[in-house]
Structures are given as C-alpha cells and as structure tokens.
C-alpha cells in the first residue's frame, strides 16, 4: 500500500491533440494529498487534463504518473441506463475490488452484505433513498448526480478525480459533497477537483491551478 506522501498523480509536459488542435499544451500538473483545484473558463482544458490523468485520452507527448488507485467521476453521472442506482454502485465496488484506503476491518469489505450496507449508508447520506432502486434513466439529473457522487463514500481510493462535481447540485447536496471531500482529505487521500469558476472549495484547497488554452497559468 502506498504511503500518504506518495499518494497522488502528475502530468509532465502533457500534450493532447484533438484532430490537429492541441487541447493540452505541455501541461505540468501535480496532485498530492489533500484537495487540488483546477480552475479555468470553459474550454480551458480542465476536463481533458482530468481525463488524461484517468488514462482516458492518449498523450501525444509527455508522461502520466499515477501513484494510487483512482476514482474518476466525470461531469456526467457515469451510471449505466437499465440498471438501478444501487446495481450500478454494486457493480463498481465489485469490479474494483479492495481499495487502498478502505477501512482495515474485514467486515467493511469482505461480504456482499457488508458491501450492500455500505452502499445503503451512502445512499441514505446522499438522500437518494427510495430512488436507489429505480432505473437511473428515470431519476432526475440531480438525483443521478447524487447517486454518482455516493461513490465517494463506497469506493475509498487514494486518488479521486472530480470534474465539475457541483454542477446540478442543490445547496444541501453541495454541503454533503464538501463534507465527503473533507473526510477523504482527513484520511490522507489526494483529490483533484475541476471547476469553471465557483469557489466552493478554495478554503480547503492545498493548491489551486488556473488553466487557460490548455496550459496552467
């Protein structure tokens, strides 16, 4: 298991091309323990930077170094239509297996019952409640978003990448998100949060990057 100091990820000289256009240009980015904010206007390259760290876009140049197991929650909920929110979260927990920051107690991870209890707790906390057993395509955008963010409390990873997590959240859910991020920070997790302008987390941030035209300023 990695130590807290090692936890995180970085991009060095990262360039990503979309056709003949560079959407990331020689980008250096370090994400260490605590909350790192990636701020910039629409089209600055924040989403591409996060997707590059998640290994979802190929680098035309530069390197990617990820030193932890990672949880990536994009600006869309990433829940499969046709399944309920609960079935989606079960799938993610089962596919991922044990995580680096999971509680040490075997009961916390070891059985389907423990997994289901953890998911039920997360849904209760996030106010998904009865909607947890409805197919996700029938949920409102806000409830889908809450269900997706409940993954923060069911998959405890060393590195969390969040793209515009406050989008579509009401004030109550925004408070819950902030509390989840604080809890993860206190566990020693590394987090990168992309936001196009809101300052919800600035007081908690260990570092703030500002992006424009595919580079940090």
């Amino acid at each position, binding site marked *: 298991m990695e130590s807290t100091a090692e936890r995180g990820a970085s991009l060095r000289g990262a360039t990503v091309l979309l056709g003949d256009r560079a959407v990331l240009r020689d980008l250096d980015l370090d994400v260490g323990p605590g909350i790192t904010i990636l701020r910039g206007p629409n089209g600055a390259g924040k989403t591409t930077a996060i*997707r590059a760290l*998640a*290994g*979802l*876009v*190929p680098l035309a140049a530069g390197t990617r170094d990820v030193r932890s*197991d*990672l*949880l*990536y*929650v*994009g600006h*869309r*909920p*990433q*829940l*499969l*239509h*046709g*399944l309920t929110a609960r*079935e*989606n979260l079960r*799938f*993610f927990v*089962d*596919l*991922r297996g044990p995580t680096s920051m999971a509680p040490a107690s075997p009961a916390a991870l070891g059985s389907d019952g423990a997994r289901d209890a953890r998911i039920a707790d997360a849904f209760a906390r996030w106010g998904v409640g009865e909607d947890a057993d409805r*197919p*996700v*395509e029938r949920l409102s955008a806000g409830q*889908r978003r809450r269900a997706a963010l409940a993954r923060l409390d069911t998959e405890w990873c060393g590195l969390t990448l969040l793209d515009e997590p406050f989008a579509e959240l009401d004030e109550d859910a925004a408070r819950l998100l902030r509390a989840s991020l604080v809890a993860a920070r206190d566990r020693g997790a590394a987090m990168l949060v992309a936001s196009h302008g809101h300052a919800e987390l600035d007081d908690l941030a260990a570092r703030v990057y500002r992006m424009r035209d595919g580079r940090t300023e």
Partner: protein
Amino acid sequence: MRGALLVAARELRADARHPDGVATAITFMGALILIESLVVGPQVARESAVAPALYWIALLFAAIVVTTRSFEREVADDAIDAVLALPGGRDALYAGKLAALAATLAVVGLVGGLLQIALLDLDVALVGHALLATALGVLALPAVVVLDVALTLRLRARAALVPILAAPVLVPQLVAGTNALGTALAGDASASLAWSGLLLAAALVYGVVGVTLAPAAID
C-alpha cells in the same frame, strides 16, 4: 475473468430490464429472412445451400444491432468512462460484452432459426448438428462485431462503418456457418462436423485476437 463476468452480468441484467435491443434484433432478423426469401423466391430460399446463407447474413446484422444498442447505453451517461478508468477495465469491458453478446445471440439465433424453419417450411435432417453449428457460429461472430463497434464508438458514421468493417473479416465464419448448417439440413453429418470445426477454430482465433487488440482499441 471475474471482471468480464461482472460486465456480462451487468449487460444481461440491463437487457432483461429493457429488452428493446433483443426484440429489435429478432424483428430485424425475421424481416430480413422474409424479404430475402421473397427476393430469391420461396423455392430457392428453401435450398440447403441458400437458407443457411440467408440465416447467417440476418444473424450478422442482428448482432450489429444488439451490440450497437449495448454501446449506446454505455455512452448515454458516459458509463463506459467509469469502467475504462478502472485497472483492467478495458479487458473486462471487451470480454464481458463478448460473453453477453454470445448469450444474447444464442437467444436471437434460436428464435430466428425457428422463424425461418416455420416461414420457409424447412426440413432439418440433422437437428443436433444444426444446433451445434448454430452454437459455434454464435461464438464466432461476436469477437469481430464487438471490436468494430467499440472502434467506431465516437464516430458519427458508425452505423455505416460497422458493417463495412465487420463483413469482410467475417466472410470465413459466414462461409463455414452456411456450409455447416447447409450440410446439416441435407443430412451430411461428417461434412457438417468438419465445417463446425472451422467455426470453432474461428471463434478461438478471433476471440484471442480481439482480447489482445481490444484494450488498445477502446478509447
């Protein structure tokens, strides 16, 4: 293997809850067999060399319909990104889709085959051999179809590209499947088994190639 089984189970659960993709594939297959039979004429369509060819062509397009529907569900809310971001996610996604498509095609192929037998009043001399050929054909098609749909996932011309990419690669499977079924209809057991052996070989070779290429191909 565990990841692939989880993806396959997730796929089949979503299919069971919303069977529109399977229903579309069966309807499409029945309509295609009927239209093909009308075009060539009922007598020609009943011939043991022709009826299986119509069947496999229809099943190939049904496979494309089911697989395309499956990946559309993946990209609807970017669910695919969450899987791909996990270690081993690409392998699990490809192998899981492969297994789920084979299971779905078994149902579509069986229903489509029964439809064809009823529509054309076909006599099947060797039922066991015909079932074996169908089962092996169902295993031989998905590796290429899933890979091609995954490759063209973000392209607007996907609907046109998938058949163009898949059909030429699948000619050996279509030839083997047609002959395996045709000889089973005509009562030639040894020839049917020989062609079925080719289908098995194709399923293994293309399966291995697909599993090897898929992680690099899926983005």
